[in-house]
């Protein structure tokens, strides 16, 4: 168990000490939000209406952008091979790295989301739903991103393949995520929360096995 936490702590330290990673991601997330009003016009009603969609699209894009730092450097400098000879199974290491990745790329988005909500003129209840939705949904996004990162880790020119590959699979997260903030049908929001939580549990439970398999094949 201590090895498990050591992997998480290692990834957190590496990312925080190198600096800039988390900040860049946040900046990207907020930039998308800031760009939208310039594209659709400063109409407050319209912006409030599309705010849930924009927050989720921004979160999705920010997550997809961060896929490269999950396994690539460990794969290239040989750390992954060293990990595979350790006492911890590769599946557990993938899970630990997934947790670290979520702490570094999911949690900051949730912290920054109120700023976007403010810019879009969302009300308090809506913002609460948005934050809860992000909290429930970002683990699933991180898991999908981990999978695409594992599948493309052996590719030297795989930069754009991973996002293209994984985008269709993340569609349910986007649908239920935006659905948590829907006002159209009674009970739809609660339903979406439950589906989102189920999706996160399912993907976080299964992805480490698939990703570890892909990493093993890539490492051969």
């Amino acid at each position, binding site marked *: 168990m201590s090895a498990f936490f050591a992997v998480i702590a290692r990834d957190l330290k590496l990312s925080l000490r190198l600096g800039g990673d988390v900040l860049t991601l946040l900046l990207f997330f907020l930039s998308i939000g800031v760009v939208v009003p310039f594209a659709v016009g400063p109409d407050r009603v319209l912006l409030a209406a599309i705010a849930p969609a924009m927050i989720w699209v921004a979160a999705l894009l920010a997550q997809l952008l961060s896929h490269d730092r999950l396994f690539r450097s460990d794969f290239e400098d040989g750390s992954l091979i060293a990990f595979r000879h350790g006492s911890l199974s590769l599946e557990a290491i993938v899970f630990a790295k997934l947790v670290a990745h979520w702490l570094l790329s999911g949690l900051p988005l949730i912290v920054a989301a109120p700023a976007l909500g403010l810019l879009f003129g969302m009300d308090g209840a809506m913002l609460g739903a948005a934050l809860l939705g992000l909290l429930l949904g970002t683990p699933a996004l991180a898991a999908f991103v981990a*999978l695409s990162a594992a*599948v*493309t880790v*052996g*590719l030297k*020119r*795989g930069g754009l*393949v991973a996002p*293209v*590959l*994984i*985008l*269709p*699979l993340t*569609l*349910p997260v986007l*649908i*239920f995520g935006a*659905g948590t903030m*829907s006002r*159209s*049908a009674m009970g*739809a929001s609660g*339903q979406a929360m439950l*589906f989102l939580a189920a*999706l996160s549990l399912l993907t976080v439970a*299964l992805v480490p096995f*698939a990703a570890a*398999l*892909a990493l093993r*094949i*890539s490492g*051969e």
Partner: protein
Amino acid sequence: MSGIDNSAEPGWFTRIAHPGLFLQWSRHLVIPLAVVTAVLFAVGLYYGFAASPGERYMGDTVRIMYVHVPTAWLSQFCYGVMAVSAIGTLVWRHPMADVSQKAAAPLGAAFTAVALFTGSMWGRPTWGTFWEWDGRMTSTLVLLFIYLGIIALWRAFDDQLKAARIVAVFTLVGAVNIPIIKFSVDWWQTLHQPASVFRADGPTIDAAILVPLFVMTFAFSFLFLTLHLVRMRTEIGKRRVHALERAAARAAGGAND
């Protein structure tokens, strides 16, 4: 476990697994399959376009169905073939499963694209729009993107043996995920209550339409089998040429890989 017992007559599994043996027995299958496909298409098209009546409300546009429904069925069947092949690749490291996986992906993408295209051609006269964000159409579009992503992944790898196993992992994840996508899209659609009303309460399909529909479904399925087999044979040939070229280059003393 490893190594094939060469002393005995090859069993059926070996006959499928060995590329050389596969090329031998599949050679005799290509032309019969092509003939069956051609006959089925001739019968299906004759029944579909000449011998069957138009529908009462949709008129002759209903004939688009004879292409639309079979390709829509194949768009899903191809993914099934890919998923089964993916299991073969991962569990048995079956070399023909690799080839089958690779051969099926562009076929699946093509059938899905045809299903979407004919769907929108059919949609224009009957619903008044080329595209409707309807649950089924949307999931089919997502399926097309998954196919294209898988093809992109195949092309990104140099080493096709490694590519086969990586793609197999992704294909199986996709197979688990596609029903979830389908469910979420259906949920999304009920949430947004589309304005158009086209799901006229399922009219019972007359036998005059059902017969050509069945024949055309078989025709397209046999078309898939034929093309799949030919593509597999071509892929084996390509790999052999590649291997021979490398051997020739090595013999010439050029590269030392």
